[in-house]
């Protein structure tokens, strides 16, 4: 990559850091902004790929990623938060200290020998791949640990971001056309999720999934 190594490390750290922030923040707005910042870091890493390859199609991917993930997604979330007065996110299953312990354990597992084969795909990038894998685990944990539907959406989108970061450093980047296809999928997914969030709120008066009990009985 033509990008400065320290800068690359900084962007990966931002992706990981925003995941931890999403776990700790009690406000939905904070989590949605964290996703925006995370996506910006991912777009910056993709821009690094463009600098390396000079492939103009990758630049289009970067622009589309910026539009969909950095601008539209946080905007959608903000609108939902304002519309339904969802300032505070629904509670978590684990309290903050336990959440921090779980984060530490997941990060440790991602860096352990168990996943050495996966994180060692490109030995020079092992530390970065481990961090990307840890971000993936933390995204999954966010979905499992949070009771709010909005957090679930952010968790799923963060999982996708983490996978993108992993592919960049593992040398598994797909062709720009396929990346655009994936981005289009994310865009449609985002639209559908937004509609669903509004409909869920209309039906249940809350986005706390524990209040959804209509399938029982």
């Amino acid at each position, binding site marked *: 990559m033509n990008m400065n190594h320290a800068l690359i490390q900084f962007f990966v750290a931002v992706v990981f850091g925003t995941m931890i922030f999403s776990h700790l923040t009690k406000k939905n707005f904070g989590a949605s902004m964290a996703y925006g910042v995370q996506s910006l870091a991912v777009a910056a890493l993709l821009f690094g790929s463009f600098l390396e*390859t000079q*492939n103009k199609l990758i630049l289009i991917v970067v622009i589309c990623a910026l539009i969909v993930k950095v601008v539209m997604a946080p905007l959608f979330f903000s609108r939902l938060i304002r519309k339904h007065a969802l300032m505070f996110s629904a509670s978590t299953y684990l309290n903050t200290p336990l959440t921090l312990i779980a984060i530490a354990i997941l990060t440790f597992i991602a860096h352990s020998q168990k*996943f050495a*084969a*996966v994180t060692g*795909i490109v030995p020079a990038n092992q530390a970065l791949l481990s961090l990307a894998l840890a971000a*993936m685990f933390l995204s*999954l944990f966010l*979905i499992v640990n949070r009771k709010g*539907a909005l957090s*679930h959406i952010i968790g*799923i989108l963060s*999982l*996708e971001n983490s*996978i993108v970061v*992993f*592919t960049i450093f*593992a*040398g*598994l*980047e*797909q*062709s*720009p056309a*396929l990346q655009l*296809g*994936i981005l289009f*999928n994310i865009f*449609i*997914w985002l639209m*559908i*999720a937004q509609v*669903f969030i509004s*409909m*869920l709120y209309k*039906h*249940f008066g809350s986005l706390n*999934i524990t209040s*959804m009990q*209509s*399938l029982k009985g």
Partner: protein
Amino acid sequence: MELVLIFSSLLIAVLVCLFVKRRIVVECASLLAVAIALVESILVALRVAAHGEYSPHVFFSVDALGALVMLIISIVGCATVGYSIAYLRKETAQNVIGQRRVRQYFILLNLFLMAMFLAITANHPIFAWIAIEATTLATAFLISFYNKPSAMEAAWKYLVINSVGLLLGFFGTLLYFTAMHSLDGNEFVSWQMLLQNAAFLDPLIAKIAFIFVLIGYGTKVGLAPMHTWLPDAHSKAPAPISALLSGVLLNVALVVVLRFKLITDAVVEPSFSQILLIVLGLLSIFIVALIMLTQNNYKRLLAYSSIENMGIMSLGFGFGGLGVVGAIMHMMYHALIKSTLFLSAGTIFLRYHSTKIAKIRGMLTALPVSGALFFIGFLAITGTPPFGIFFSKVLIVTGGMHVHPMMSALALVLMAILFIGFFKQVSAMAFGDVPTEVEVGEKNIWLILPPLALLVLFVVLSFYLPPFLSTLIRSAASHY
């Protein structure tokens, strides 16, 4: 040319549904599109049976199993679209839905069919992933179609669990690309290229990748323990959509898992993937056996039966040899009969206005044909002789007896428990006095014909397999 016609006809149907308001035009366009898809699928199947794998374009490729699944998509799709027309007309007459919803329904249904065709014909694993994800997006609104809290909850569960599952599947898919390190990143990587380059794949990465793929796509297949979304989604969707979800979509996802199994088996000993498939298959059957007796909703009963049958197929592919032949035949038979069951369940719902088993009494009297279709469907799906599913189950268990006798015996015992559970529920529905508020007699021939056609086809194929189908099954079994 065949694939172009399939995709373009479905796309045109989507556009017609989008821009034309007349209901009859929307219905005819959808029916015509799926009829074209059926004809073209038969042509593709004949071509593959005669000449082997068909690759009309670098992006698309159809092997024997793909051709079989294409046939399943188009046959069940045809019956579903035909049934949907009558079903939605009845629901509109009962003021359950409005005219606008009908158009939305057919747009999403055609998109759903198109996404399934794309997933099965895509020659690139990531392209297939995009198409499978598209099936999730197209069906989410179909599951929440009735806009009731329970349907919304089911659809949300479906969207979240499947999206997470598919992202894990995506990660597993990407790990397989480590075999292609020597290639330029922009080169098109087909399934065949991945298989040819499997030797460059690190065995440990191959194992981890397959686990991710199995968990990810296995979620879509409905294998336990990732099945939790399935009974809710399949029971809350409109009956014709449930038929497609249960009868077709699960198979499409399973085929993707099998394609990765092929690549994994080329790197590590096949017993690795086989054991995983056997364990998940048995677990699926076991969980359903526990739940079946206590079910109080007949659509959920059918949904759980789908989990069981996907488990049986997984078992067959895990056993290998004869089990694979049985699993492929089971895939075909299950698709036809499960769709018959869901479509006749739709007619039962229209008559009784309930999906609770306790409220369905005298089904064979109230609905002599649809009730009989449901009852015969139950006999067939539980593996009662002389139907095809009996033979496919025998093949799977026989295949397993040679390699894993204990597992096969356990599967057999669980299938017997399932039969008892299913029989208890369906017999309660079939017989007894019809509730006074329920009309007696069939009212709409168009609600009978599609499931009847599927049942007739199922019975015919139980006793006679056309040569081209036998060739496809043999060819697919030799690969997987």
